[in-house]
């Protein structure tokens, strides 16, 4: 793998984001607004389903937030016609995918650094503290899955008419198993433990999800960008 090219591509995304800071800030505002909306929608109380219902809301909000960010995937390249420059360069197409997926993953994590504590304040602060190590692992694994698949799907959506509508439509069927896995893993970190599943099994499922779609992204991105 061409590590220098990979680093340069990720650095480019981060620099553009630092200068323009349109994606991360937009996502952050959106996710916090979604929490507020949930809070008022529930009449100001804790969700009746307890911890599980709360984490369910959390992950639904995160998936929609991620979609907002993913709609800006390759936006610079598209708007300024830079794709031809990247495609003409002697780098593996899979590397272009990997670099972009990594940037997306970093953006998501940056949003969550603020969003997760905010969620805690909004919905769970009266409850017991979670197992932080497992929680961080679960969130990171879910983010990798979202970024890996999302980057590929964003590429597919970019060619269609009504790109903004197509991206969520293409992504959501894959978000269902992801949300199920992430909710199960996150709930498992917050006592009391109600289920017989081990932490390893819950995290293992997310790791499996990541492995499958990382392989798909790595192998199939070429067919999405080359015309």
């Amino acid at each position, binding site marked *: 793998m061409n590590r220098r090219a990979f680093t340069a591509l990720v650095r480019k995304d981060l620099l553009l984001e630092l200068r323009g800071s349109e994606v991360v800030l937009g996502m952050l505002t959106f996710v916090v607004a979604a929490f507020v909306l949930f809070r008022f929608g529930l009449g100001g109380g804790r969700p009746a389903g307890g911890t599980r219902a709360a984490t369910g809301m959390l992950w639904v909000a995160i998936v929609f937030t991620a979609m907002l960010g993913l709609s800006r995937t390759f936006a610079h390249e598209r708007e300024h016609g830079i794709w031809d*420059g990247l495609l003409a360069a002697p780098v593996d197409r899979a590397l272009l995918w990997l670099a972009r997926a990594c940037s997306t993953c970093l953006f998501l994590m940056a949003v969550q650094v603020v969003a997760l504590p905010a969620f805690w304040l909004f919905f769970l602060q009266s409850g017991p503290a979670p197992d932080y190590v497992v929680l961080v692992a679960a969130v990171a694994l879910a983010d990798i899955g979202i970024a890996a698949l999302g980057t590929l799907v964003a590429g597919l959506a970019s060619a269609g008419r009504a790109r903004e509508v197509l991206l969520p439509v293409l992504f959501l069927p894959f978000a269902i198993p992801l949300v199920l896995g992430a909710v199960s893993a996150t709930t498992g970190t917050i006592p009391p433990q109600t289920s017989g599943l081990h932490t390893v099994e819950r995290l293992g499922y997310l790791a499996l999800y990541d492995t499958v779609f990382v392989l798909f992204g790595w192998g199939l991105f070429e067919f999405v960008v080359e015309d």
Partner: protein
Amino acid sequence: MPSPDAVACNGLVRRFGERAALDGVDLHLAGGEFVLVTGPNGAGKTTLLRVLATVIRPTAGGVAVAGHELPRAATKARPLIGYVGHASLTYPGLTARENLELYAALYGVPGERIDSALERVGLDDRGRDSVAEFSRGMAQRLAVARAVLHEPSLLLLDEPTAGLDSDGREVLREVLAEPGRTVIVSTHEPPWFEGLATAEVRLAAGRVAA
């Protein structure tokens, strides 16, 4: 064994949906030639350059750059090709230097070459400025610096003189006059390239016009 043609197209076809932008192009160029591609809008000039730049794949027919068949051996052909497209292929949000740093990494070119590349196109004092602040002429000069950063043996330029100021034209002429390269330029103003060009190919409706 004779060295392969710098560029060889045999019955090259490229379709976009139903429309054939290139409809059987035959073109053979020896190394070191300087070819102007002319023709009306929509004749297929840009498509031809994009296929040769390995940006889009041919639909049918054979095309090879320095003996590397496209798209199969595109990975081997890419380091040999420099491409100046319609757009400048640079990020407006980055500085000139950062753009070249990115492409130097992609092409595996040592970072020290960036200074001389900027100097070559007269942008050495603008390296730390964001490309968004550049005039069309400066952006075009940066695009040329980007395209020759890795010293390609085949240089493809799509309408390089469009919107270029007199300084830019001077720089472009200097770069194009450098020996040892095969150059293909699509253009609407062939007279400007007098003294550089060795041949002219006229495209009409996706074919080479006789």
